[in-house]
């Protein structure tokens, strides 16, 4: 094993561990919030996208319309579209490989693939991270649902504060420019202001109006 490959494997293990903590919390908070255990478990298996799972579940737990939850989750995942093009060289090949590679495309796997210099290493990093993350993410969700059934009072343990905190922690690395920060701030303000008047779930979609900040930057 070359040193750089060993470093890659070590970093992948660290990322899987960090994501497993997120996934345990996600499973526990969903179940403690009143959802049956199969909901987070199935979502982890077939959606396999932390931010979208947590955002959609938050909206549903807040009493929002499932379609608003789908819309928020789907819009969050539009970022996977460019990822697919970025790593298309490593997910190519047989149809099975393409389908499996597509499902394993995450922020993490793409980040690891992009860090490598040779195509062979890119492929290795992508598939190692993808498979390891898929297994650890799903095992952790199941573990979380078990923990969640033991804590059946979300309020007492303050678990209702964990989803928003998780989403802030997930969003911050993407806020690298001032305009994105302005867009996120304005969007959040608009969403909160509209909460008393719009059906639950919709105010979140209104936050996208904050993206106007980015347009202003482009026209200059």
């Amino acid at each position: 094993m070359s040193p750089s490959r060993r470093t890659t494997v070590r970093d992948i293990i660290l990322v899987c561990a960090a994501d497993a903590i997120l996934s345990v919390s996600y499973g526990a908070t969903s179940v403690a919030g009143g959802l049956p255990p199969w909901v987070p478990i199935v979502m982890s298996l077939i959606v396999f996208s932390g931010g979208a799972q947590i955002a959609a579940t938050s909206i549903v737990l807040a009493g929002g319309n499932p379609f608003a939850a789908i819309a928020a989750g789907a819009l969050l995942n539009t970022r996977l579209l460019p990822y697919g093009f970025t790593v298309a060289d490593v997910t190519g090949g047989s149809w099975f490989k393409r389908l499996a590679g597509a499902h394993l495309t995450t922020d993490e796997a793409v980040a690891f693939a992009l860090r490598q210099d040779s195509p062979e290493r890119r492929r290795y990093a992508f598939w190692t991270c993808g498979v390891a993350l898929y297994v650890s993410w799903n095992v952790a969700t199941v573990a979380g649902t078990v923990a969640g059934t033991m804590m059946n009072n979300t309020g007492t343990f303050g678990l209702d504060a964990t989803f928003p905190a998780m989403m802030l922690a997930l969003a911050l690395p993407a806020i690298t420019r001032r305009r994105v920060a302005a867009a996120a701030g304005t969007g959040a303000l608009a969403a909160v202001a509209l909460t008393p008047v719009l059906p639950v779930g919709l105010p979140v979609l209104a936050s996208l109006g904050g993206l106007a900040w980015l347009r202003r930057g482009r026209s200059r």
Partner: protein
Amino acid sequence: MPIAAIAILAVVTFAFRLAGPVFRTRVTISTQAQDFMTAVAAVLLVAVAVTSALTQGHDFGGWARTAGVAAGGLLAVRRAPFPVVVVTAALVTALLRLAGVA
């Protein structure tokens, strides 16, 4: 959450993931478009975080949760490790409730 809703979200998500491997020879996505989609994700995550921190249904959700999320968020800005952020948010909220803050 109905199974149909989960299935729709799964199919849409998978379609986004599969578009690249299928269409890559015919389409190219600009860096600008990539940045824009990352910004969409950031704006939505912050909006869901802030609304679920502050509100419950159509009303204010109470000070305990608001303070807990604020504490966790502050630690996240300071680049605290993820478990610290999550546990702090829950702990601050739980302790405030124990002290009688709604």
